[in-house]
């Protein structure tokens, strides 16, 4: 089964290298298929590992070490892969959904002049993400973490001739680098105290609570940046500048879920720092609320979906922060299905309208894209969490888990329920605007080739049945599967009454949200507006403006001040003057170089005499 893990990791890397090295010697179609096949081979490897682990029993994880990678004193890090329930689950999601997205890209990117580069990046991205989830110690996880940041930068800025795309890529990279830095600092503290970066199943080392809290905070910083949680979330909506399949890959299957994976993976540390873990839960709750509100006023279809991603990751953070790791991971999985579906269905619409992303210009397209409309509806219902769609099963158990954390938990519970109402509202606002009645625009491409429709179909199916593998508290194979690695804390296990109450309320509120959306947006009635609220929402709660005023502008002002002050006066003038002075001195000194033998002898003799006198005097 470890061979499967190695295959899973190596295939996308080989694909990326092959496409890069072959360059223009292979046609675009060949490059696209190399990438697709490499990711599906990775999926096969993941399936192989999964069945291998099942045969062994999920309580026997396999850690395989290729070689010692780093050694310094008693600190040793190996190039290790870990096959355990958590990593196989992530491998399956990443390579499976990733493969479908790459397949979809073949159709979507067909007209793009730089397809080869695109597919090389896609393979690299999948490789990075697989390294992140398969790495057998925290250092390899960090390597994957950084590579994911790099490849997301490359993909978000793929259309490099658009200044907005370049800016968005930079923003994503800087925000992520911030998280990487806090994570690296946490690792330093960890190395200093425990001399190890191995994944610990129980974190029993005697550490001061300060050290533990610092480590947990650092890890939380990394997780929040990668998963776009407040306050490090501003990069995610801007990242919609990339091609739509990239958005699907980043926002559904891979990158943004890494934070949840990190919390589940390092939960022994977080459990020792319970306060930080509860901060993570609160962060998730705040994010799901804010993102849900902002999504209400967006007009760009991809941005609405992006905010809904932030909101759903907020649910996952809420679950993982409360200690319901399995529920968080379960929601991660179903979210990967329906969010990839929504993005790709939106991609079909955008593709059909030749790049149009404004929802208001899409009205009437539903009549021409019937299958896409249906797929979008399935994705939306799964997102809102209505039974029997996938979101229902995963979201409600997270909401129920909140009820156990005293008054704090009740607040989180209420916020999460408000979130379901908002989810229903913004999702179906989007649905009714895009597929609502209206005069159809001329269509350009239709529903697209089979490479686009097949993944949408498969994911529609998964968005329906994907949640059926677990129905807490009656039927919990997934929780059981993850138990050896990420056992749900007893405090996060709701009673069946709480579970039932939360589910019922969530469904009712979701339906209410849909109802309000129908009343407001389905017809042609004017939508009520509150100017102040709308302005706040359209400015995304002024996060970008605040960061601009707090960090960007002072940094730019300081930089220009330093440039006009010390830099020009000292660092540019001084070297020039130094050079000029050297030349002046050299001109003077040159005179004693007469070329006459006697002068040299005189200097030699004089020097000797002086030395002799000095020696005599000092002796």
């Amino acid at each position, binding site marked *: 089964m470890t061979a499967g893990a190695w295959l899973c990791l190596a295939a996308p890397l080989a694909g990326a290298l092959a496409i890069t090295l072959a360059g223009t010697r292979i046609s675009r179609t060949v490059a696209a298929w190399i990438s697709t096949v490499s990711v599906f081979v990775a999926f096969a490897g993941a399936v192989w590992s999964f069945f291998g682990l099942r045969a062994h029993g999920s309580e026997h994880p396999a850690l395989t070490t290729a070689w010692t990678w780093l050694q310094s004193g008693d600190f040793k890090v190996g190039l290790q892969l870990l096959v355990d329930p958590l990593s196989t689950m992530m491998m399956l999601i990443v390579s499976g959904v990733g493969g479908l997205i790459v397949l979809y890209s073949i159709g979507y990117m067909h007209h793009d002049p730089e397809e080869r580069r695109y597919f090389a990046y896609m393979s690299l991205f999948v490789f990075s993400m697989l390294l992140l989830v398969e790495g057998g110690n925290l250092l390899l996880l960090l390597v994957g973490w950084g590579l994911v940041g790099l490849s997301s930068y490359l993909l978000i800025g793929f259309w490099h001739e658009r200044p907005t795309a370049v800016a968005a890529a930079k923003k994503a990279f800087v925000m992520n680098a911030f998280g990487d830095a806090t994570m690296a600092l946490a690792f330093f503290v960890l190395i200093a105290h425990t001399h190890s970066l191995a994944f610990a199943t129980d974190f029993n080392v005697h550490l001061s609570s300060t050290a533990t809290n610092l480590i947990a905070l650092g890890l939380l910083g990394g997780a929040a940046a990668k998963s776009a949680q407040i306050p490090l979330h501003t990069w995610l909506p801007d990242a919609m500048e990339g091609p739509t399949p990239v958005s699907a890959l980043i926002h559904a299957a891979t990158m943004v879920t890494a934070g949840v994976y990190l919390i589940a993976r390092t939960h022994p540390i977080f459990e020792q720092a319970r306060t930080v873990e509860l901060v993570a839960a609160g962060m998730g709750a705040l994010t799901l609320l804010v993102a849900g509100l902002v999504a209400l006023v967006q007009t760009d279809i991809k941005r609405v979906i992006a905010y809904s991603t932030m909101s759903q990751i907020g649910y996952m953070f809420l679950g993982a922060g409360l200690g319901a790791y399995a529920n968080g991971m379960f929601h991660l999985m179903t979210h990967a299905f329906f969010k990839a579906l929504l993005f790709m269905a939106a991609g079909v619409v955008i593709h059909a309208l030749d790049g149009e992303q404004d929802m208001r210009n899409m009205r009437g397209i539903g009549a021409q894209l019937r299958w896409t409309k249906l797929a979008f509806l399935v994705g939306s219902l799964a997102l809102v969490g209505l039974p029997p769609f996938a979101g229902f099963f995963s979201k409600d158990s997270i909401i129920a888990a909140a009820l156990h954390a005293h008054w704090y938990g009740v607040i989180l519970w209420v916020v999460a329920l408000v979130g379901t109402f908002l989810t229903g509202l913004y999702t179906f606002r989007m649905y009714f605007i895009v597929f609502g009645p209206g005069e159809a625009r001329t269509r350009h491409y239709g529903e697209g080739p089979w490479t686009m429709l097949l993944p949408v179909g498969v994911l529609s199916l998964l968005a329906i049945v994907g949640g059926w593998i677990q129905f807490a508290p009656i039927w919990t194979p997934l929780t059981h599967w993850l138990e050896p690695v990420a056992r749900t804390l007893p405090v996060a296990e709701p009673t069946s009454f709480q579970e039932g109450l939360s589910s019922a309320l969530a469904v009712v509120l979701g339906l209410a949200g849909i109802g309000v959306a129908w009343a407001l947006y389905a017809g042609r009635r004017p939508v009520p507006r509150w100017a102040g609220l709308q302005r706040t929402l359209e400015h995304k709660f002024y996060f970008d403006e605040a960061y601009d005023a707090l960090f960007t502008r002072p940094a730019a002002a300081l930089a220009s001040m330093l440039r006009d002050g010390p830099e020009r006066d000292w660092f540019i003038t001084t070297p020039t003057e130094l050079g000029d002075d050297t030349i002046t001195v050299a001109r003077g*000194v*040159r*005179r*004693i*170089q*007469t*070329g*006459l*033998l*006697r002068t040299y*002898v*005189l200097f030699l*003799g004089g020097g000797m005499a002086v030395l002799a006198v000095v020696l005599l005097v000092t002796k």
Partner: protein
Amino acid sequence: MLGPSTAWYLGVSAFLFGTGALGVLIRRNPLIVLLSLEIMLNGANLALIAFSRHASNGAGQIFALAVMAVAASEVCVGLGLVVAIHRRRLALDVDRFSELRG
């Protein structure tokens, strides 16, 4: 110890060295410069031998022999240069060879 004291020898040695140095500094004929150089070396040799005798240590004498060997080779090269200069019908004047001035 027979003969004059070491100080006398050193006096003669310093005189020889000074004479030689003066010759090197003020004469322009390369031949004379070479001769003066020899006188300087011999002044140094005399000092070495005087100290050797003073300290009853043979090392100084060995040094003097080595200096003589070096002096002989140096004279060979020096005279060779003088002959080469003469063959090219250049003036035998060290001050004329100052192309390396700054």
